[in-house]
C-alpha cells in the first residue's frame, strides 16, 4: 500500500462526506425555508404537471438562458451536456458489472470531454472579452473555470497522451466503496486529475455550484400559477391572520 493510495483514499472519503453532507444540508435548508408569497415569473403553468414540464425545459435545455443570451447558452449547454456524458462514462469506475447504458455512452463520453473543454473555453472567453461580464466576474469565477478545465484536460491527457492503468484505478475506487482498499496506480496526470476532482467536491457546497440544487427550489420557476384558486400560506405567516 503506497502513501499515495492512503492519501487519496482518505481524501476521497473526506471529499465525499463534505459533498454529501454539505449539499444535503443546503437542500434541507432550502426545503425547510418557506416561500410565503406566490411569485412565479408569469406566464407560468397553471398545473403541477405544467410546472414539471417547465422545470424539465429549464434543466435540460436551459430555456431561460436561451432567451437571455445565445452565446452563453451555447457554451454553457455544451459544457453541461459534455459534463453529463463524461460523468456517465465515469460510472464504469464505480460499478461491476458496468451498467448497460454506461457501456452505451462510452464512445460518446470521449468526445464529450472535448465538448466540455470547448464550452468552458467559450464561457471563459466571454468572461474576459465582454466588458459587462468581465465587470461582474470575481476571482473565484475565473478559478472555477480554471479548475474545471484542468480536470477535463488532465482527464483527456490520460486518454490520449499518457495512458493510465485504468483497471487498477477501477479496483481502487471499488475498493474504497467496499472498504477493501486496493493500490492506486502512479502517474502525475492521475494524481492531478483526482486531486482537482476532490477539490471540486470540497468547494461544491460552499460555492456558486449550489446553482445545481438551487434551481429546483427557485420559486419563480417551480410555483404553480393558481393563487386565486388556492390559498397559499407559509407556516410563519399563518399566525398573522388578524381579520375581523
Amino acid at each position, binding site marked *: 500500500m503506497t502513501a499515495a493510495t492512503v492519501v487519496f483514499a482518505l481524501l476521497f472519503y473526506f471529499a465525499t462526506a463534505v459533498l454529501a453532507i454539505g449539499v444535503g444540508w443546503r437542500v434541507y435548508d432550502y426545503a425547510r425555508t418557506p416561500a410565503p408569497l406566490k411569485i412565479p415569473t408569469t406566464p407560468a403553468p397553471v398545473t403541477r404537471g405544467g410546472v414539471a414540464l417547465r422545470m424539465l425545459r429549464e434543466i435540460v435545455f436551459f430555456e431561460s438562458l436561451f432567451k437571455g443570451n445565445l452565446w452563453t447558452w451555447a457554451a*454553457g449547454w455544451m459544457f453541461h451536456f459534455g459534463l453529463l456524458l463524461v460523468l456517465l462514462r465515469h460510472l464504469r469506475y464505480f460499478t461491476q458489472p458496468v451498467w448497460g447504458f454506461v457501456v452505451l455512452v462510452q464512445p460518446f463520453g470521449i468526445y464529450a470531454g472535448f465538448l466540455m473543454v470547448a464550452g468552458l473555453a467559450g464561457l471563459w472567453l*466571454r468572461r474576459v472579452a465582454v466588458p459587462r461580464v468581465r*465587470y461582474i466576474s470575481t476571482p473565484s469565477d475565473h478559478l472555477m473555470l480554471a479548475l474545471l478545465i484542468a480536470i477535463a484536460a488532465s482527464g483527456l491527457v490520460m486518454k490520449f497522451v499518457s495512458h493510465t492503468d485504468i483497471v487498477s484505478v477501477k479496483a481502487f475506487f471499488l475498493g474504497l466503496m467496499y472498504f477493501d482498499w486496493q493500490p492506486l496506480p502512479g502517474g502525475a496526470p492521475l494524481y492531478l486529475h483526482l486531486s482537482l476532482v476532490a477539490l471540486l467536491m470540497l468547494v461544491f457546497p460552499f460555492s*456558486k455550484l449550489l446553482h445545481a440544487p438551487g434551481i429546483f427550489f427557485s420559486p419563480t420557476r417551480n410555483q404553480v400559477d393558481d393563487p386565486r384558486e388556492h390559498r397559499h400560506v407559509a407556516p410563519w405567516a399563518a399566525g398573522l391572520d388578524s381579520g375581523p
Partner: protein
Amino acid sequence: MAADVKAPPLRTLPIAPDLAPGAMAGSKPYVATDKMQQALGFPGELGEGWQERALGKMGELLGKYRSLKVYLDSCVHCGACSDKCHYFLGTGDPINMPVARQDLMRSVYRRHFTLAGKVFPKLVGARDLTKEVLDQWYSYYNQCSECRRCSVFCPYGIDTAEITMAGKEIMDAAGLGQKYTNEIIGKVHRIGNNLGLPGPALADTLEGLEEDVKEETGADVRFPLDEKGAEVLLVTPSADFFAEPHVDSLIGYAKVFHAAGIRWTLSSRASEAGNFGLFIGNYDQLQKIALRIREAALELGVKRIVVGECGHAWRVAYSMWNTLAGIGAGGTDPFARQLQSQLDLRYKQPTHICELTWDLIQRGALTLDKEANDHRVVTFHDSCNVARASRMGDTPGGQFEIPRAIIRAVANKYVEMAPGTTHEQTFCCGGGGGLLTDELLDLRVKGALPRMEALREVADGQSVNFMATICAICKAQFTKVLPYYGFKMSMVGGVHQLVSTAIRLGAKH
C-alpha cells in the same frame, strides 16, 4: 421640464451601452423622516446599533424567504441578465446590471452568513456591511423598479426584485427608509389612499364626475361610494379619482358597469388599490394594507371584488390577496372562509376590470362604436407587474391577450411595438417600485429609454399616437417623461379610456 434632466439619445442599434462606472452613484431619493419611519414601526434613523439591526433582519429574512436564500447562493455570474435592465440600458452604470445589483447584497451575505466569505472574503468578493456599503445599497436599491425583467432570462429564475425588496426591508429595519414610499404607506393607513384624499373630498369628486358624464353622454352614469348591498366592490388606484389621464379610465369603468347594469360601489375605507408594502418587501405592511380591502368587502357585503387599472396593485391582488387577506377561493381556514363564503365564486376573485369588460364584450353586453377611436392609432405597453407577476383569464398569457382583445374591440387601428419589448419581455416604464418621485426624475427619464425607443419606432413608422396601458404608475411616469423624448404627454392613457370613447350608453341593458 427640469433643466438639468436630459433624455439620453435613442440608440440606433439596440445594443448594450458602454459601461459608465459610477454614473448613477449620486442618485438617491430623499430619506424618510423619523416620524414617517416610526409610523410604520421602523427605527427613526440609523444611529446606534444599525449594523446589528440590519444583519439581524437579513438573517431573519433568510429564514423566512426561500427566494432570498436560494437566489443569493445560486448566481454563477453568467451575465444573461447583464443587458436586460432598463436602468442599465439608460444609464450605462454597471451596478444597474441586475447581477451587480444583487451582488451588493450577495457580498454582504457571503461575508456574514457563509463559510467561504468568512474565510476567503477577497476570493469570493465578500464585504462587511459598512456605512459605505449601506449607502451604495440605498442608492442602487432605489434604482430598481422591481419589474422582474431580469428574472425572465436568468437560468435559475433569480428575481432581482426579491433582492431589492429584501434590501429595502433591511434598510428600513436599520432606520434608513425612503421618503416617497414610506410617507405614502403612512397616508394609506391614516387617510385611506396613497394620495391622501379624505372621504368627503372623494365623495365630491365622484359627484363632479357624475355631472361631467351626464353632460357628455346624457346618461345617468353613477359613481357610487360606500353603498351597502352593491354586487361589485371596485378597488382602484387613487390616481384614478383626479389625475390625468387616469380619470378617463375611471369614467370608462363606470360606463361599463352602467351599460351592463351591474350595481357597483367604491369604498372610502379601501379607496386605494395600490399597495406600496410590496415595494419595501414588508409582509406586515403588505398584509395590513390588503386587509383594508377585506374589511371593506365584509362591511359592504359585496359579491365580487374588481380591481382597476394598476400594475403592482394587480400583482398584489392576483398573486397575494388570497394569501394575505383571504380574498380568493380555496381557503379552508375560518379566516378565509368568512369572506369566501360571502363572495360569488362563480366569478374569479379578485377580477381585473379588463377581465370583466372583456367578458361583457364577448357576451355582446356592450354597444361599441369603434369608429369613435379612429383618430387614434393605438399601441399597448405591457406593464411589468401585470405581464410578469400575474395573469388574467384562464390560460397563461391571458394578461397579454385580454387587454389587447379589448383594444381591438374598441378601436380600429392597433399596432404592436417591437418583439422583445412587449409581453413577458416588456420594458418597465421607468417609474415603478416606489421610484415615482421628482428627485429621481433623472433616473426615471433614463430608465424610460428602451420603451421610448420602441415607441419612437412605431410612432414614426406607423403613425402611432396613443399608447394604452393599464397601470397608474405607468400613466403618471409616461405623462412626465414623454415630453423629454419629444412626445406629447397626452399620448399615454388607459385601456378603459379607449373603452370610454367607444362605448354607447342606453342602447342595451
